[in-house]
């Protein structure tokens, strides 16, 4: 187990390294000139060719790409992600200010997706072809097919503009989180609800479920006591994948609801060609993706002894 865990961690680190190298190459290959942007920030309309050339030289922008990547990686490992071209603040400071906001959004959305998906999936399986099952199936399809910017706009119009129950933007108490959480949770909750429903249906046809019925257990009892624990692994892995994708949703949700998280910062970084900001946030995304997937792998191994067995040739 320990060896397998170390192997997974090693692979995860390699993956992070490869992904950061790829993003570094993509960001540097994008149109635009970092030196020109820095010069423009420092001197406004007074930025000229000479100043731009000097900045490029000072920053080593004329060095070969591998050298630049190695230098960037060395700095990043010490927590130095550079200074944002847009705000003029070190990215470490930006992270310290913005990551808690994004984490709160993802955590709330994750919990909501978890609760909603289990509730919808179990209710659908309990109904088993009845009206509740069909309605929930329809809702899940709608939830999985509706883009989150549209969901956000509709929620704001109904609950903020018409009913005046919650703020349209910003953070002002728990109620201000409701719409962002619902918006970001709707898609994963819908997908996960189908995962729960389909897997429960499959599990309910297994022999142990039949045995449960033969022993006189009710359908609900068999669902909750016998079938539900058996869908833990597929649910956990799908939840992990959906949770990591929520950070992509955060990019839109944070902007729409005026939350100053890393997603909103990423959009502005792209708009202003803040290459340093973009690279730092892409690195954060890579670390997030890989770490969550690693965590899910480890939890799955702990939950299912079969996954801990070494593979035979």
């Amino acid at each position: 187990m320990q060896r397998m865990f170390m192997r997974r961690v090693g692979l995860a680190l390699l993956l992070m390294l490869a992904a950061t190298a790829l993003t570094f190459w993509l960001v540097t290959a994008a149109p635009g000139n970092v030196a020109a942007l820095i010069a423009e920030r420092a001197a406004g309309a007074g930025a000229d060719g000479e100043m731009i050339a000097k900045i490029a030289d000072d920053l080593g922008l004329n060095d070969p790409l591998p050298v630049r990547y190695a230098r960037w990686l060395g700095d990043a490992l010490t927590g130095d992600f550079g200074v944002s071209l847009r705000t003029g603040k070190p990215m470490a400071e930006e992270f310290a200010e913005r990551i808690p906001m994004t984490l709160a959004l993802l955590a709330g959305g994750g919990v909501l997706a978890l609760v909603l998906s289990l509730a919808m999936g179990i209710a659908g399986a309990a109904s088993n072809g009845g009206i509740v099952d069909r309605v929930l199936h329809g809702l899940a399809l709608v939830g999985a097919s509706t883009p989150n910017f549209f969901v956000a706009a509709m929620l704001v119009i109904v609950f903020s503009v018409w009913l005046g129950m919650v703020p349209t933007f910003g953070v002002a108490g728990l109620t201000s989180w409701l719409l962002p959480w619902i918006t970001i949770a709707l898609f994963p909750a819908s997908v996960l609800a189908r995962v729960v429903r389909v897997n429960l249906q499959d599990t309910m046809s297994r022999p142990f479920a039949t045995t449960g019925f033969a022993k006189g257990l009710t359908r609900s009892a068999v669902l909750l006591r016998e079938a539900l624990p058996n869908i833990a692994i597929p649910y956990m892995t799908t939840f992990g994948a959906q949770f990591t994708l929520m950070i992509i949703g955060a990019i839109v949700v944070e902007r729409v609801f005026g939350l100053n998280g890393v997603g909103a910062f990423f959009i502005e970084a792209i708009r202003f060609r803040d290459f340093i900001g973009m690279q730092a946030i892409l690195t954060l995304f890579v670390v997030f993706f890989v770490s969550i997937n690693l965590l899910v792998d480890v939890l799955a191994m702990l939950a299912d002894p079969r996954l801990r067995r070494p593979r035979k040739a």
Partner: protein
Amino acid sequence: MLKLDRRSFLATTAGLSFLSVLPRVAHADGHADTLRVAIAGETGDLDLLQNVSTLSSYSAVFDALIHYGPGGALEPGLATAWTIAEDGLSISFDLREGVSFTDGTPFDATAAEWNLKRWMGVADFSWIGIADNYDNITIDAPNKITVKLKRPVPAALLELTIVRPVRFLSPKAAAGQPIGTGPWIVESYSSTETVLVRNDAYWGEKPAFGRMELKVVPDELARANALRAGELDVIGGDWVAALSPRRAKALEGEGMTIVAEPGTATTILGFSPKSPMMQDKAVRDAIFMGIDRAAVATVLFEGYADPTADIFPTTVPTAGARTPVPARDVAAAQAALTAGGWTGDASGWAKDGAALEIAFLVSEESFPGSRRIAEMIQGMLMEVGVKTNIETVDNATMHERRPNFDYDLTFFATYGAPYDPHGSLGASFVTASDTGPDGKIYVHPDLDALVATALETGGDSRQGAMQAVYDWLRDNTAACPLVVTQRLWAVNPRVKGFTLPATDYDLPFKGITLG
């Protein structure tokens, strides 16, 4: 029939109870003395020497020696009077007495000198004429200074009205502390909002309310919804939190007050001086005559734009004589092509074996809505027989291609007040200027000489020298002005007496009272 059992009844009741306890969002409650203004990006620390903070908030906190008034009128700021020497080589300022920075530091000649020396004569600010030609400063009295110049700078006084770096910071302010003499004091700033409180010791007209909250709302739809919900009082302003004409029209239909005033910046269709096709004046004339500016203003700007054939609107000083806005004339456009040696008709034109086909460079990022305008112009020119190919690129590509004149047609905009006309003329129409990624609208050796003369001419001759530039641009069809977009704002009904400041770079608060 609906069946209601005990479990669903309890669940429904619990749900409704939860919703009912959610507090209704306070609209004006608790904000009676606070104006809530949307800003698209955080203000930052309002560093006067860095090009980072958003431009719109400086004038609330910092004063300049001279303030920009309606139509470019120069109004006393921290200077109550000024005198330009006859040779134009020195300007004396009488400084306002009894003024202090909000940290208690007195504003006097010493503080003024300290501030001016931070940017005058500094290479980074050589784009400002008075900084580029700075010689020295003398303190003539505790409240009188004289700035001496190496060469006359006729636009010097206008340059002293711009946003940064010309405004005055307390010499005792620590780094990152925005302390000025203006009507507002920065209480706090973060990435979500900046809170300003009234400077009760302000030397000028004090705001009628005590607090202003600048809320960061990057998304335009979110701003509109927040206004609808009563969470914001004011949205709009190109440099504050832009409001699109479509959104303004929608809000107007919902009972919001829309304030639209003539703008100060012109949207211009630029012809690349390096494009062989665009070097042909007949082609430029055909395009100039083949566009229906009124339709562009009405359809694409929902009426919130004014058609124009001039480089600068009358809202900026020395904008020159007015050129009648030409009605679209397809026949005249085709006649111009024929006179220029082109053969063809509405199906297409050719000259010396080359078909008339134009590359139209567009970036939605650089100029939101430009794709739609380009498509409309494409349709209009198609009827003349001029084929245009729209190339949509991102902002960075636009910033690379525009300085290299790597296009046939593309959009430009003049800077607007308080930077014009000298700002746009000196940057966008001069071969030697380094405008970086912004590119230039048109350059030509003859134009260089005219612009240089105009910018160096002061006094009564200035208007004539400026007019010579405008005439050259018009006679050579060097650019194709389209519309002057109006300054658009939407305000909550509780805001009374809303009046716009003189420029798009200032926050509106003067004259406003809160209901």
